[in-house]
């Protein structure tokens, strides 16, 4: 195996340009599971851990190399809440938001916030420079993204005027150290509610019909909340797998969305 530890972004992009098939390594919390359990043996690995440009957080951008441990302390409330639920302290010390985006697991805990915030994924290559991709065009299937082979994920954008009222919750079999069965983010701003869910479709999903319904209401009554839960349950696209069933996920998605809308109003 050939191993390269890039020291800056230019070096990483140059390696990717010459060897687009090389495996990117950030925190290792996904890749090493493949190595240990599936005996994945990459021919070439490019480590991004030392690339300082990827470790910056500003009000407008979150560097791809920022760990969950740091995001737990961030001012983006919904994302900080999600970060607290990722794996364990050990996982959060290593895993990064860029890794979450790159792996693109339906259960990625950072992804519903990205969808709710309408954040964009910043990618870069040596030949074509920077490309800013709307999250909807970036996540194209289960663990599939539109990242080109010579590109590196560099950041997630934080849109301007993001509402301060942000809530995240997920359901799993226990509180600590759990992969989500359903996850949900609700943002409440002047333009109304935005509702995104994870683990209920191949990619993160916005509950657009539920958003339209609730945002047309002037008062959020119990019957509106009931209708919201019903629509969310209807518009998610979950499957039955080893973690849960389709019907439970539909039910849980509606309950979570309703609960987070209520929480965001407190």
């Amino acid at each position: 195996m050939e191993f390269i530890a890039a020291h800056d972004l230019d070096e990483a992009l140059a390696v990717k340009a010459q060897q687009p098939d090389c495996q990117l390594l950030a925190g290792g919390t996904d890749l090493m599971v493949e190595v240990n359990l599936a005996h994945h043996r990459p021919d070439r690995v490019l480590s991004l851990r030392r690339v300082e440009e990827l470790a910056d957080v500003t009000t407008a951008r979150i560097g791809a190399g920022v760990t969950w441990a740091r995001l737990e302390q961030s001012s983006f409330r919904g994302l900080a809440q999600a970060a607290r639920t990722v794996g364990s302290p050990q996982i959060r010390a290593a895993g990064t938001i860029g890794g979450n985006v790159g792996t693109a697991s339906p259960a990625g805990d950072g992804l519903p916030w990205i969808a709710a915030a309408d954040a964009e994924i910043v990618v870069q290559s040596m030949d074509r420079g920077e490309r800013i991709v709307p999250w909807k065009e970036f996540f194209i299937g289960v663990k599939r993204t539109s990242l080109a082979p010579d590109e590196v994920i560099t950041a997630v954008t934080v849109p301007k005027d993001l509402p301060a009222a942000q809530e995240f919750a997920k359901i799993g079999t226990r509180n600590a150290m759990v992969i989500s069965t359903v996850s949900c983010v609700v943002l409440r701003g002047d333009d109304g509610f935005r509702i995104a869910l994870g683990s209920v479709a191949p990619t993160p999903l916005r509950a657009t019909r539920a958003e339209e319904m609730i945002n047309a209401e002037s008062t959020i009554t119990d019957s509106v909340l009931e209708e919201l839960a019903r629509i969310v349950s209807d518009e998610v696209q979950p499957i039955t797998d080893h973690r849960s069933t389709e019907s439970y996920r539909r039910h849980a998605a509606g309950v979570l969305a309703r609960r987070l809308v209520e929480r965001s109003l407190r």
Partner: protein
Amino acid sequence: MKITIVVNGEKRVADVSGPDSLLSVLRNNLDLPGTKDACEQGECGSCTVKMDGATVCSCLVMAVDADGSSVTTVEGLSHGDNLHPVQSAMLAEGAVQCGFCTPGIVVAGASLLESNPHPTELEIKEALSGNICRCTGYGAILRAFEAVTGEDT
């Protein structure tokens, strides 16, 4: 590929093949079997070490990527019979049954006390939330930590 890491204050060189984990290098190349190998997917915490100040699962660190880093394993926390306070407290409380999770719990707990010498019960539980013990039910482990953190360290 040759890597150099400082393990428990001592410079060590290991010849690493492929994408092997830091855990495997510690146990198999550097003769430090205190760090335990169980789930190999970051779920159990038995392989917990400190690396450059962060508490991590050594099974999820690609060893070649640890080149140049500084690692503390459970072996580095005691000096002969002079045990780390967490180890002494776990002995006194009988917080060990099969013992397989113990090194990871000692390292995670020692890291917590370094940054937060007087944690609350919730902070202790959170710090140990990545370390699974299937024998003790955690009661004795928590009592051991409460005994340590009640003292001035």
